[in-house]
């Protein structure tokens, strides 16, 4: 929404206006602390009770050359007094810490949007670095916006005149001056961030206090000057009653895996190798050793998955976590798990590619890789998380399928939801699925490849159990006995049996549900992280009087058993994907249905309006 420029005024004070929804983007050099600033604003807004959604956007380089366009790091957050689904298409407010940050982000800003710039950084040298021929603060090029020029660095130094810190350390506090201003502008309390600073820097109290002081200076600057004519508030969202926290996708995934470990009674083992944007799962799980979690930073991606397979063989919950390039390296290991029929969860936090691609940007283009990127017939269940909080439930589902069917399972997430945050209604532990597992104990009649009649799962018989000594491996197995077997009929049987085992999962997973008309002209079908943009777009289309339905897939292999019927009920099916049509390819092959792909591969998620415009075109609006 556009921020109003007028509001209720008390004498001598800024006008106050309540808005239902605002999008703020913090942008600066990669060393300016923009991710941290945005996260603090997010957490404070969460504690007020706003609904929220975030979109961090940072370069792959840790410190790209200062002041350049490739070095710009941004954090977008949307807060609202109602249920929202995306971090917002266009910012209402842009905080630009230098000319490059302004240049890189200006095109997204809404007309008449608010720009706050750090004038101290608008030097001829920095303007040149950012590619400006003239100073945009002086050449009228920003007339379409509401520009606020603030000497953030100067004010920060002044606020810290009495501090013992060196100038460099003082200057590093300037993001908190901007944060203090934004807190004032949107009527947020400072206490949550003050509390956080004092815990974070408990061993360096001088740093904590300097940041507190600077943040308060930013707040006071707005309060006592007439810098802003209007001050805004966003009231709490009317969320379902319950206890909430703000959570990132990778964090929800890590906690979900621990929850699955507890609910299954299996100790969690994570084998991982550092890779963007999956490393945070390793980092977070490494802090949960007190839950019996073993994390193993292996020598490479292959060792990471193989160690997890070893752990599963020993009776642990083996998990490996990576992104596209790492998943490619794990392919042979995943196939070993297919052959030896051991539980294994592989989390693929997708990023832009191919090859090294865009490490810090999002994409959904690993679907076909995880479906088919292994030698021979290699059926693996695939499920996808659709939002940051949904990563928690998806982790539990992956573990459930892996242990019940004795199979590797791929969990797809992506950079957008991995690094994005949203409020999460915290579940009761007792409500979580019961994932208890029983190892095979009875030596009488035991065969390593005998099967459960319903699921076709083989028994999980772990080393240390007397009388169950057996050998498994990558060579083809004779059904039931598990002995090495090269007979043609046996191989044909086993290939079909492994496929059938995975296909049977469709018998128990929920049917896909259609929102809106149950049949008709247009169905928008999505999977994974496009849920928010699709939901927002379809809701708006309904508000505009258009006839459209939507559905979203969590289970991508196997598909829900009613998916074919659902597709048949619609004349046209639109699938928005951050790839060139990978789900569409699977659907066409499986259901012989014409699917219309809406592709976007810019390393950025769909905006709501992009999908809305496509719906409008297709629905004849």
């Amino acid at each position, binding site marked *: 929404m556009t921020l109003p420029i007028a509001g209720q005024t008390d004498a001598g004070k800024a006008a106050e206006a309540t808005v239902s929804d605002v999008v703020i983007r913090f942008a600066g050099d990669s060393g300016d602390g923009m991710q941290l600033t945005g996260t603090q604003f997010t*957490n404070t807004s*969460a*504690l*007020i*009770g706003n609904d929220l959604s975030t979109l961090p956007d940072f370069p792959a380089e840790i410190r790209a050359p200062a002041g350049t366009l490739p070095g710009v790091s941004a954090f977008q957050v949307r807060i609202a007094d109602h249920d929202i689904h995306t971090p917002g298409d266009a910012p209402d407010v842009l905080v630009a810490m230098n000319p490059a940050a302004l240049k890189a982000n200006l095109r997204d800003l809404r007309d008449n949007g608010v720009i706050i710039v750090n004038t101290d950084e608008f030097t001829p040298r920095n303007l040149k670095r950012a590619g400006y021929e003239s100073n945009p603060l002086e050449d009228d090029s920003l007339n379409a916006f509401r520009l606020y020029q603030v000497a953030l660095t100067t004010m920060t130094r002044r606020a810290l005149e009495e501090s013992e810190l060196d100038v460099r350390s003082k200057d590093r506090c300037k993001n908190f001056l901007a944060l203090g201003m934004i807190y004032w502008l949107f009527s947020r309390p400072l206490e*949550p961030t003050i509390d956080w600073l004092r815990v974070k820097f408990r061993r360096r109290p001088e740093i904590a206090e300097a940041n507190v002081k600077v943040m308060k200076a930013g707040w006071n600057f707005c309060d006592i000057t007439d810098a802003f004519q209007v001050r805004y508030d966003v009231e*709490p969202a009317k*969320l379902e*009653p*319950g*206890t*909430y*926290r703000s959570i990132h996708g990778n964090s929800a995934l890590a906690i979900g895996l*621990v*929850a699955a470990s*507890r609910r299954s009674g299996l*100790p969690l*083992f994570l*084998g991982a190798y550092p890779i963007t944007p999956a490393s945070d799962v390793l980092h977070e799980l490494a802090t*949960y*050793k*007190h*839950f*019996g979690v*073993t994390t*193993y930073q292996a*020598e*490479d991606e292959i*060792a*990471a998955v*193989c*160690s*997890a*397979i*070893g*752990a*599963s*063989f*020993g*009776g*642990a919950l*083996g998990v490996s976590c990576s992104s596209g390039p790492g998943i490619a390296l794990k392919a*042979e*290991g995943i196939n*070993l798990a297919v052959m030896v029929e051991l539980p294994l969860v592989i989390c693929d936090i997708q990023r832009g590619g191919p090859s090294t691609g865009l490490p810090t940007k999002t994409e959904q283009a690993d679907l076909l890789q995880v479906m088919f990127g292994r030698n021979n017939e290699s059926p693996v269940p695939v499920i996808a998380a659709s939002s940051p909080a949904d990563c928690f439930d998806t982790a539990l589902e992956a573990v459930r399928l892996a242990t019940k069917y004795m199979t590797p399972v791929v969990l797809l997430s992506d950079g957008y939801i991995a690094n994005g945050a949203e409020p999460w209604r*915290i579940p009761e*532990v007792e409500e979580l699925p019961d994932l208890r597992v029983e190892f095979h104990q009875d030596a009488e009649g035991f065969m390593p490849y005998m099967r459960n009649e319903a699921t076709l799962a083989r028994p999980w018989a772990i*080393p*240390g*159990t*007397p009388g169950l*000594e*057996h*050998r*498994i*491996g*990558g*060579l083809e197995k004779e059904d039931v006995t598990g*002995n*090495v077997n090269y007979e043609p009929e046996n191989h044909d049987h086993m290939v079909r049996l492994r496929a059938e085992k995975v296909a049977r999962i469709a018998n128990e997973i929920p049917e896909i549900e259609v929102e809106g008309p149950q049949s008709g002209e247009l169905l928008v079908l999505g999977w994974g992280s496009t849920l928010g943009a699709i939901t927002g777009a379809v809701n708006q289309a309904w508000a505009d009087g258009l006839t459209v339905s939507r559905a979203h897939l969590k289970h991508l292999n196997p598909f829900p058993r009613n998916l074919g019927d659902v597709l048949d009920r619609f004349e046209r099916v639109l699938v928005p994907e951050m790839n060139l049509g990978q789900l569409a390819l699977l659907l066409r092959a499986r259901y012989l249905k014409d699917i219309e792909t809406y592709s976007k591969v810019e390393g950025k998620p769909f905006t709501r309006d992009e999908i809305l415009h496509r719906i409008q075109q297709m629905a004849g609006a």
Partner: protein
Amino acid sequence: MPTTEATPLTRKDFQSDQEVRWCPGCGDYAILSAVQQVFPELGIPREKFVIVSGIGCSSRFPYYMNTYGFHSIHGRAPAVATGIKMTRPDLDVWVVTGDGDALSIGGNHLIHTLRRNVNVKILLFNNRVYGLTKGQYSPTSELGKRTKSTPHGSVDFPFNPLNIAIGSGATFVARSVDIFMPHLKSVLKRAAAHKGSAFVEVMQNCNIYNDKAFAALTDKAGRQQNGLYLEHGKPLVFGDNQDKGLRFTGTDFEVIDLGNGRSADDCLVWDEKHANPSLAFQMASISTGDGLGDFPVPLGVLRAVDAPTYDAGVIDQIDELTTARPQTLDQLIHGTDTWTVDAGGSVHRGAN
């Protein structure tokens, strides 16, 4: 979990019902036999043994042992074994691998397992050739080796497996020969008793693709003439009548003839526990291992030092933190910053 009663196990208890399918005359038969003889003597219940292998002739080993076994993928056995040992310290985990499996495709896993000192035993069957793929040269094949893939002779230098292990920081490094049964068994027992990564190179004859690769060492005369049997605390003496020795000049080893005023007292006394690994490295370097050089082939234990194991370190941290930081799943899920929306829609900081 129950364990089997302490009825003494025998060699037969470790023989599986699977037909052994190595080529007749393969050195692997002798190694299998040695392992099946040693395992019952270790006092470990059969169900506690896990043998993990990669790919290659040697890696069929687990199928022939009636223990838990895992025939994994090419080169990755140390990684699989590490995952097992980290989560199941009660198990006795052995890796069986070959020169191609361990030193070519799996080199990375081997060196990292050794540097971490994971408490697993690694038996590397070194026949200096790729057998299962029918005779290509391997990373331990001698320079100039003519094979199907090097018809004009190989032009790359081989690895010395012992030096890879010592250089990786292995805490136990030893070597034996497939057909030297008593020696091999004693080395296997020493490896089994070691706490930490134990690396054992077993010179193994491939009678199909690289026959007699170690003949100068293994034939009747060579065993004494060309074998240097290392024993901790004993002087380095070898030869038909123990008539030769090795002394250390300060920079190099030197072969000396004993008698004529020179005795075992002039030879270096072997110290497998020497803190600095450079002496073991230098010892490993005196011979390429085939017995054809000027120096004898060192056999037995080159290095055996005590060091904390990786798996124990990992498990200690988990145990310590589990006691020090008791937390419920509910607390974990809640985290530190929560807010509550009550039935009336009002919001307050904190949980209910």
